[in-house]
């Protein structure tokens, strides 16, 4: 094992080149590597079927790895020829449907995993968890009589009660209404930070990932596309897929001359030395675009989507490219207005132009 840098926090989990295949030859996840520090919250983000849940189940021990290894709290819990069963991994898990034991009260559910402690300690830990999650008044209720948000709190308290090495959450907010989701996200983040518990949370919603995570792992087709902070993902996406998945993004063709990118919408200096083909694609985010009415402008407004605080416009450029720009609501333009675009490239991101793209 390599020695971590002195200022880094200890690693709770290391996933090294893990592949997991339900059927031979068709891996659900392939060569995935990342690490989680103590107290860190990670989000696994990606479209459905990208392998997020599989990654979670591999860490929990419900699936075994085909290759690679998982190191949990400095113990190798999963390698090709070693599989520590889930009950010996000390990992808490919150399921999408919560999976509360319907025949047990809230209190019994929360205390279910506390088997190796004295009765006194057990009761103290249950009371503590109930108080932390605001469930003290509901201790004697059965799961079916609780609301969705309350059920989720029980699932959370139950998973956290045995003080797991880390917590895994599989789309924990997908069964809650939008108001409740917002509320529970903040609550969960505060709770995890308070208990200094590391967590991995699976989601397909980038807003949720940005709100919850310290670091986000973007998965696509079973492969890790990028592992970075939310800001980095948004401003410096590693691939066009990531760029599009974490927000609206358009790509316009450009050409590199020396250290400048020349496009239809303007010229910008290259942020860092660039070695690659001269023909590239430049990422444009709607918030980089300023729209101005102009009879001699380079495009026409084709679509208009009112989003409350701002309006998203789709502008068809003379060359046929479509670019989106957002403007605050008071600045309103009707459809078919000819406009001029001022693009301020705060973070210029370029990608190779695919061969088939003309």
């Amino acid at each position, binding site marked *: 094992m390599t020695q971590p840098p002195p200022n880094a926090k200890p690693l709770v989990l290391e996933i090294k080149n893990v592949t997991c295949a339900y059927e031979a030859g068709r891996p659900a996840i392939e060569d995935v590597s990342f690490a989680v520090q103590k107290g860190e919250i990670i989000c696994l983000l990606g479209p459905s079927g990208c392998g997020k849940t599989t990654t979670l189940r591999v860490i*929990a*021990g*419900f699936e075994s790895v085909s290759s690679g290894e998982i190191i949990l709290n400095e113990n190798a819990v999963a390698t090709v020829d070693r599989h520590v*069963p*889930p*009950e*010996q*991994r*000390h*990992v*808490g*898990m919150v*399921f999408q*449907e919560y*999976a509360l*034991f*319907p*025949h047990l009260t809230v209190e019994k559910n929360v205390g*279910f*995993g506390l*088997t*190796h402690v004295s009765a006194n300690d057990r009761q103290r830990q249950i009371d503590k968890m109930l108080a932390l999650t605001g469930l003290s008044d509901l201790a004697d209720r059965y799961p079916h009589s609780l609301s969705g948000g309350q059920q989720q709190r029980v699932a959370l308290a*139950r*998973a956290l009660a*045995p003080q797991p090495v880390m917590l*895994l959450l599989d789309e924990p907010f997908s069964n809650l209404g939008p108001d409740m989701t917002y509320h529970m996200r903040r609550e969960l983040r505060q709770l995890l930070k308070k208990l200094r518990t590391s967590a991995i949370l699976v989601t397909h919603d980038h807003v949720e990932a940005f709100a919850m995570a310290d670091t986000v792992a973007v998965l696509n087709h079973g492969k890790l596309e990028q592992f970075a902070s939310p800001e980095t993902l948004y401003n410096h996406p590693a691939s066009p897929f990531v760029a599009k998945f974490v927000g609206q993004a358009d790509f316009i063709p450009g050409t590199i001359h020396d250290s400048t990118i020349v496009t239809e919408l303007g010229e910008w200096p290259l942020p860092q030395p660039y070695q690659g083909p001269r023909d590239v694609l430049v990422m444009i985010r709607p918030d980089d675009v300023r729209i101005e009415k102009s009879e001699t402008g380079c495009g026409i407004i084709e679509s208009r989507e009112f989003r409350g605080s701002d309006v998203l416009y789709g502008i068809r450029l003379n060359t046929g490219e479509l670019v989106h720009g957002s403007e605050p609501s008071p600045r309103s333009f009707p459809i078919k207005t000819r406009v001029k675009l001022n693009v301020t490239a705060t973070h210029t991101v370029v990608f190779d132009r695919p061969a088939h793209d003309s």
Partner: protein
Amino acid sequence: MLPLLYVVVTAMTADFAVWQRLWSTRVPELLLNTLSLSIGVTVINLILGVSLAWILTRYTFPGSGVWNWLLILPLSIPSYVLAYTFTSLLKRGGPVEHLWQSLAGAEAVLFSPFSLTGAVLVLALNTFPFVYLLARSALKNFNVSFEEVAHVTGAGRVTTFVRVSLPLIRPSLIAGLFLAILYVASDFGAVSLLRYQTFTYAVYQQMTGRFDNTAAACLSLVLVACAFVFLAGERWFRRRSRFYQTTGRYRKPIPQPCHPLTALLFTGYLLLVFAAAFGVPVVLLIQWTIEAASAGHLSGKFLGYVWNSLSLSAVTATVAIVCGIPLAYVACRRQTWASTLCVQGAYTGYVLPGPVAALAVLVLVSQIIPQLYGTVFVLLLAYLVHFLPAALQGMESTFQQLTPNLEEASRSLGIRSIRTFFHVTFPLVRGGFLSAWILVFVQCMKELPASLLLRPVGFDTLAVRIWLEASEELYQSAAPPALLIVLITIPVALLLMQKDRQTT
């Protein structure tokens, strides 16, 4: 699985002459009889089942809630009990003939109960709740938007029903009919009392009258082959007619109040069906039981039969559940080809009609452990072969309703597999197992052909007593055990209904 193989082997190794004799004499007649009985029952079941389900799901009128429950009760009457009350009702000079003659003239003759018509009537009245129940749940979960679309495009009510509603509930109707026909083809009690020749009755006759187990095995093989073809057909039908109409949210039909006159008409119809299938037979049984009691027939001997039935059924049900738990668990959670083979093997008991199961166990035991021949153990084994599938099915669906997430949640909390089973899985499936136990228990109480063929000398069960007395037309002496069986079965029928409620 093994008993079935034995029947097959015995039949295959039978002398060619036996086959030839059977083919030229019995088989065509038996096939025709079984087929016409099935068709007759199907037609009546369809008419009764769909009309009753339609009335009770689409209209509300005073008492319509109660009918939902009452129409289940016919399932609690064993076919031989219904058959024997009908022979008394329909016999020459019986009450129904009197009624008919007072209406149609003194010379009018009614059909004999000992005929195709009689058998169709009895078995249809006995099995229509299968079709009714499935049609009812299909109509209840029906997405009304389909009908509304039809109305919007200008189709009238009749057109809509025939071209939209009926095709959409067809899978459920077919499932119900398959159940009913399987029941009819494997029924022994009713056809034997009505002396109507079908395969099951013929197998029984070969075994008891001629002591010819080889011929019985040959006939059984034909019947089992038919059953397999039939089951394959059912699977095929089910695959083909899978309609996905219940995705996401949909609007269920709301029953409409109806005109008082229509309500009266409906009530009259429901009352007629109910009286014929349950009301009149039970009233007769009660009356006969009172007569039997006052004549001093309810002696210690009767209590002995009750004890025989109760103890044997309880033991069988318990053994079936204990054997079934690992099988059902394996079938749901650890699927491998070996486990699938094991479970499917256990299910073959399903296609064995009562007399065939009895024959199979008899042949098997006399070949392997002849010492057991003529003991209660043989009977117990036959019950198990016959009813394990029913228990298994109940337990399997109980396991399936339980999401594996619960077990995974427990293990992620540091609890081992075995502890998880006892603390999470078992408490949650207990209820389902209890109803499986009750189901097997009641089936054993009602079981007739195997008990008749395999009981040790002097070990009569209630069902056997009913059949023996009814064959002699001793209506009064047959009534007390019959009434007892009906009373024990009623809660089970209602349990079935409640399950149906929960799933809808």
